């Protein structure tokens, strides 16, 4: 469960989040939409512990995986990008790869999971890079998954396949997904709008 109580956050003398209250029960999928600069990414950074809470309280039970927006690929192999150097069983890696819709592509590569993603990720496309980041989040086996514009680089078809594959995996898990457009959050139980730091 995630519980946010009276959360207020400011920087540069500007209040980004104003007295936020939200309770997300285990297994619930919620979506948050909002304009650029409305505080979505700040909320994610607070939830994942990257930013320290200034005022109010956040309680999140369980391991959290976050898929940040943009290319977050390390200049390592696909396997190292997924495991991040942690001991993860091979079948768990392949399960993550399957869900992230990468299995067919990786099997077609001569070096498979040990393919180098390139300097600045230039050996893979934007969509492939994003799906490797999703596989990284899944392989960690988290209780809470946070997606920040995580499918923005995918075409409609791949995105639909990915969500379909994720449905089964995240049945028991809590998901917070952030997007600009409401249509990208069809799978969510509830959708909130973040406007000027206020959830509505």
């Amino acid at each position: 469960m995630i519980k946010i109580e009276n959360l207020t956050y400011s920087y540069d003398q500007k209040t980004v989040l104003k007295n936020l209250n939200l309770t997300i029960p285990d297994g619930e999928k919620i979506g948050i939409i909002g304009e650029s600069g409305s505080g979505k990414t700040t909320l994610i950074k607070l939830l994942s512990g990257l930013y320290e809470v200034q005022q109010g309280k956040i309680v999140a039970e369980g391991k959290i995986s976050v898929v940040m927006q943009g290319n977050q690929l390390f200049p390592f192999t696909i396997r190292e990008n997924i495991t991040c150097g942690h001991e993860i069983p091979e079948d768990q890696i392949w399960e993550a790869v399957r869900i992230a819709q990468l299995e067919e592509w990786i099997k077609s590569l001569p070096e498979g999971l040990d393919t180098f993603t390139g300097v600045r990720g230039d050996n893979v496309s934007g969509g492939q890079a994003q799906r490797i980041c999703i596989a990284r989040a899944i392989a960690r086996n988290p209780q809470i998954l946070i997606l920040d514009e995580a499918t923005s680089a995918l075409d409609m078809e791949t995105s639909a396949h990915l969500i379909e594959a994720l449905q089964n995996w995240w049945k028991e898990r809590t998901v917070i997904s952030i997007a600009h457009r409401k249509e990208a959050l069809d799978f969510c139980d509830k959708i909130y709008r973040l406007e000027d730091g206020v959830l509505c």
Partner: protein
Amino acid sequence: MLKKLGIKNKYLGLLAFRLPFEAIRNLVNALFLKLAFEAIEAQDFTKLGIVCALFLAANLLLFTYNGTVWRFFAAFYARLQKKLKLYIFNKLLAKPIEEIDKLASGDVLMRINQDAQMTAAIYGEPWNLVFLANGIANLALSSLLLCFFDLKFYLIVLAFVIPHILIVSWVLSPLLRSIQNKLQKTTAELTDMYESFVNMADTVFLYDCSDFFLKKIQLKNQELKRLSVKKAFYKALEQAVMPLFGITGYLVLMFLGAEKISAGIMTLGALLYVFQLRGGVLMAANMIATSITTISVNKAGLKRLEDL
């Protein structure tokens, strides 16, 4: 490329002017040593004075000539760089927008700066086409003079020059080129690792992989160190080959010359003349080998421009 830019004939003219400099300078030095030492042996100080004055005048003329030609070359080189950059701009602008979109901004900048620089260097910088042409002219003249003077001496010079050139250009230069490419690739990967570590600090923190990341950086640093040591080793070998062949060849010529001098069939001045011509052959061979290597490296830029 020069033909495309419409400056081929001008370049060939400049090259022809620059061509005889090294060969004539070497000939002037050789003749000076021969005549000066013959004058000293004969204790003819009037002849020595005339030889020295002629040597001074010849050098003054030669260096004035060379400086004038290089001045025109410098102006040509600046114009060439400008024309090349303009050529790249026009080529890029003529491309469909889809193709330009595919090029990373870094790639475009690299083409405009690096490729233009590499291509211009082939035509205008030392140790490229100019030195190659000069080396060939110098080698031809020095070889011809040495052959006419004494074929045996010439063959001895060649016996030491050829293995030297072959070892450097067939063994050491390819090894150095390959290690240089690996060094560049590893340096780029290491820089990318540092950049990623800083730019993706959030993700590194979230996935608790800073130790793993630092270990990878450490390994890449060790790889870079190993490659640098290897490069230094090959460089040292390259530098060791030169004195090894050079000094041995020199000693053989000296003993042979000493024998001829003591037999009264050669003067000290003539031996020094031979040494100077030998120096010309060595210098020319070195100019040719190094210029070929530099041109082959710079040709990568020229090829990218021609593929544009």
